[in-house]
């Protein structure tokens, strides 16, 4: 099985390079590139579709171009990709749901640590016996009574 997988991986070829579509006018093309920087290439993992030379990234950028040309706003374009690839498609995931939890977790750990430190330093000291307390010893009480006479 390992041999088969290795042979498939090593024998895997490469897609022929191809040009993307012609750029739009400069203002809209700037938007295409800006949106493309925020979308992740489907076949090259941690690289945006604007930065990747992969053919599939060209295809995804062409899709952004097509959607911009149709008059879609940035959010609608992000929604198109999120609908297909999930939030995985976003280079910077939205700060909501589990992702928000991941952002908040270090802060919560810090808060918990501070609370622990405060609670351990604020422990009340053990009560010290009062120096003036009367001894419960009968003999001493008798001596004191004799002295007072």
């Amino acid at each position, binding site marked *: 099985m390992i041999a*088969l997988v290795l042979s*498939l991986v090593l*024998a*895997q*070829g*490469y*897609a*022929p390079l*191809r040009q993307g*579509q012609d750029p739009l006018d400069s203002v809209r093309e700037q938007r295409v590139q800006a949106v493309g920087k925020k979308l992740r290439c*489907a*076949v090259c*993992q941690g690289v945006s579709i604007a930065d990747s030379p992969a*053919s*599939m990234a*060209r*295809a*995804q950028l*062409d*899709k952004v171009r*097509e959607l911009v040309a149709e008059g879609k706003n940035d959010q609608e374009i992000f929604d198109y990709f*999120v*609908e*297909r*690839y*999930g939030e*995985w498609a976003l280079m910077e995931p939205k700060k909501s749901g*589990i992702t928000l*939890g*991941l952002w*908040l*977790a270090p802060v*919560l*750990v810090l*808060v*918990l640590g501070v*609370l*622990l430190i405060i*609670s351990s330093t604020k422990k009340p000291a053990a009560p010290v016996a009062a120096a003036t307390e009367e001894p419960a010893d009968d003999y001493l009480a008798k001596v004191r009574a004799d002295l007072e006479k």
Partner: protein
Amino acid sequence: MKRVVAVTAALSIIGFIIYVMAAGFGTDPHEVPFMMKNKPAPNFIIKRLDKEGQINLADYKGKPVVLNFWATWCQPCKVEQPVLDWAAQTYGDKAVFIGIVFEDTEQNTRSFLQQNGAVYAQVFDPRSTVAVDYAVSGVPETYFINRQGIIVKKYIYPFQSPAQFTEQIQEILE
């Protein structure tokens, strides 16, 4: 009372952090999620390469469809080709088989098909726009679409045996 509140708060925070970590680390960051499951298959009208004419996916509504994305430079695609040919011959009367070549050139594809023949319909996606619509993230990938035109599943590995394919196609034949 204060102590109970503090312990409850601390346990809540720890529980929340464990939950978030489990959810975050329990997923493979390199795995592209399959979001097209149970969504309508995006329509396409594209040129056939095995013969003249075009294929319009909408024409096949009411029939199960097997959509295989492949490319001539992809070795695993060549490994699975005999299985897909067998599948098209075996299940061709119950389902429609379409091969979509993407990330490739038309010339490469035509010469490949001339040499190897085509048992089922082959179309060419020149700018990989159909592949992007289907959220393809590698090659080969096979999508199974039911009679209602809904994507039921996708298979992201090359088929290595008829049994493997038979297991996958059952759901759309029901």
